[in-house]
């Protein structure tokens, strides 16, 4: 059921990116889609009553990782993938906003239907 709510968040972002005609609203729709995807990937790796994947001094017995730690930690692989995805979304947001600012300076509006009709 939680997966379904996350998918609904993704669909809200997709609706905003497809239907709206203000350029900043389209950027906001893409941003909501990125949040939903990152959330879904982390939810896939969750173990009920698990612990974070960081080894402390109490998890080591005689230099080896204890069995309790191995059997109760959450999945570290989706966390590694999502960590880089969050920083990349910031870089692509900067690029999209710089395109919007340039277009506003040239055409005077954020409306994409007006930009299609003006030429040159």
């Amino acid at each position, binding site marked *: 059921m939680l997966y379904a709510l996350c998918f609904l968040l993704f669909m809200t972002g997709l609706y905003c990116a497809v239907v709206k005609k203000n350029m900043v609203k389209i950027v906001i729709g893409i941003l909501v889609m990125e949040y939903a995807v990152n959330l879904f990937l982390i939810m896939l790796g969750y173990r009920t009553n698990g612990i*974070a994947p*960081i*080894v402390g*001094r109490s998890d*080591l017995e005689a*230099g080896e990782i204890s069995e309790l730690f191995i059997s109760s930690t959450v999945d570290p692989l989706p966390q590694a993938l999502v*960590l*880089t995805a*969050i*920083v990349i979304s*910031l*870089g692509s947001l*900067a690029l999209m*906003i*710089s395109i919007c*600012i340039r277009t506003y*300076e040239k055409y005077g509006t954020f409306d994409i239907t007006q930009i299609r009709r003006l030429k040159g």
Partner: protein
Amino acid sequence: MKGMTIIVKTISSWVKVLIFLFGIYIILFGHLTPGGGFAGGVILASSYVLVMLAFGKEFVEENLPSSIASKLDCAGAFLFAMIAILGLVFGGTFFVNFIYQKYLPGEALNLISAGTIPLSNIAIGLKVGASLFLVIFTLSTFRPKEKE
């Protein structure tokens, strides 16, 4: 863009040092506690963004000009690539953790352990911090040409 009132300027000149120190702590201890290079780099950039919002653009231009920021960005990326190539030279495989496996294992859960992982964290933190400061500075100083 002019700065803000005198209260904001006083408080932010104390707080910016704490934010910078916290960013360095998150980068250096990235292999022992949560954090790592990416989060620490973004925190470093945000300390300079705080100074830019409170004091105005001209103040930041004297302390960290955008040409030096872009050179730091390139230096961080070059350092990261150098660590990868040194893995090929010393270890035999591209990007292998040669310091941990051959020279200096260190003890687990100490600050000096895990080989090239703290060095990679420092390179990535430098690169991400300089890039994000550069892009926010460029977005703020963009002055459109006036069409008379």
